[in-house]
């Protein structure tokens, strides 16, 4: 019995699955030996032959993707950096490589990414030119390291303040506040300002002078007392060491007593002077009529 092409086509799936009985397989093989068309069909079905030219194949795949899942370029971009860096798992990398082989845009991006990985590290260092080192050394070498001068610190601080974007607004705000307090106060404007202000200034100066004098007197008395005691002690040390030791012990006890007395005295005096100054300022404030401003 002669096998027809249609019979062979019916048996093709069984041939591929190797599920054809041996007798039928022999008949099919005999037909294959005689029929070039069915031979080609079998090769195509086995994936051993592609009838489509390369360009049409790409087009067909693109068309199919467009009508089904859509192009995967967006997904590729998520993984492209890892692919270029070789950090993608093996299976993912193989799948992505298939896309890149067939997508010119993604292949171009992959090439640029590779190029960037090679070029960018070289951009880390740029030569600033020969005078640069000299300028840096001139700006640093003669300075005291880690301890900027007070003037430089103030200059830096001032520059930083001046560079602040809102500096002008802030200065204007503070200036307006001061003007409102001093000039805009009706009580202050209505009086003859010079005499009471002079009075306040005089009283404050007087209080300050008194406080300074007291402190200076206290300090010089303590210094001269200590110097005198030290002189006596050194004299005794040279003549009689035993007596000197006893004197030193007595002096130490006395010194502790003096120190305690001085501390309490100082605190008491300072408290007293502070109260006096505050009262004077308050009196002057009342005499100027300024107490009404904040009441």
């Amino acid at each position: 019995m002669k096998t027809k092409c249609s019979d062979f086509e019916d048996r093709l799936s069984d041939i591929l699955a190797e599920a054809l009985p041996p007798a039928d397989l022999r008949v099919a093989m005999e037909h294959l030996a005689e029929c070039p068309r069915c031979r080609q069909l079998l090769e195509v079905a086995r994936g051993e032959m592609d009838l489509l030219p390369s360009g049409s194949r790409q087009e067909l795949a693109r068309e199919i993707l467009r009508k089904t899942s859509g192009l995967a370029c967006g997904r590729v971009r998520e993984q492209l950096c890892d692919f270029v860096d070789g950090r993608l798992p093996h299976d993912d990398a193989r799948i992505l490589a298939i896309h890149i082989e067939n997508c010119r845009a993604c292949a171009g991006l992959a090439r640029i990414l590779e190029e960037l990985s090679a070029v960018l590290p070289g951009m880390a260092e740029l030569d600033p030119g020969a005078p640069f080192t000299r300028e840096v050394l001139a700006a640093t070498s003669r300075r005291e390291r880690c301890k900027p001068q007070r003037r430089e610190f103030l200059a830096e601080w001032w520059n930083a303040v001046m560079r602040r974007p809102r500096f002008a607004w802030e200065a204007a705000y503070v200036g307006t506040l001061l003007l409102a307090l001093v000039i805009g106060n009706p009580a202050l404007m209505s009086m003859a300002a010079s005499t009471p202000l002079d009075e306040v200034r005089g009283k404050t100066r007087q209080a300050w002078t008194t406080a300074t004098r007291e402190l200076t007197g206290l300090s010089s008395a303590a210094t001269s007392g200590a110097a005198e005691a030290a002189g006596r002690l050194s004299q005794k040390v040279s003549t009689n060491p035993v007596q000197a030791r006893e004197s030193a012990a007595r002096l130490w006890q006395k010194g502790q007593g003096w120190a305690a007395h001085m501390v309490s005295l100082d605190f008491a005096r300072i408290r007293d002077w502070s109260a006096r100054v505050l009262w004077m300022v308050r009196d002057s404030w009342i005499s100027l009529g300024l107490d009404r401003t904040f009441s």
Partner: protein
Amino acid sequence: MDLAMLLERCKAGDELAWEALVRQFQARVFGIAFHYVGNVEDARDLAQEIFIRIYRHLDLCGDEQMFVPWLIRISRNACIDHLRRRKARPVLSDIAVEEMIHLQAPGPNPEEHWMADSRKRVIHLAFRKLTSLNREVILLREILGLPLEEIASMLEIPLGTVKSRINRARIELAERVRALAANAGEPAPLERS
């Protein structure tokens, strides 16, 4: 040169060691400043300012392994301060990034040199066109090669965010390079065999 020894001597006030340190790192500091501010004059002034800061605060730097991240951190802070000041008081003119071409080392032969410079110029122009955030992650990761953890700490964002941001920035840079190269009529990027 042994960085640990250099740092130790600098901290002890050795001026020669300081000069060696300046010479060793000036190109990198200048590079960072240039990539941030985009013009040579500002970058040069800024690099000087950065070195003065480093000089004054050298004692705050830890061991030699911490020095480069510390240096980059100081440089970045100085650049950000500078950009803020410039934003508040904009300058009248900005020198173009093409100036960088004069700063590059010559290549092995004129044609290769031209290609390399031209290509680098395209890449740099594309880099300048990135958003400031993408530019910064490209600078810190791809140019300076900082570890992701260091970048996350510097930018105060989670590690995962840093990774995804770097990937997005790289893709954006690649697309911009492609677009610029196409506009300039340059040959296709690195058709390597």
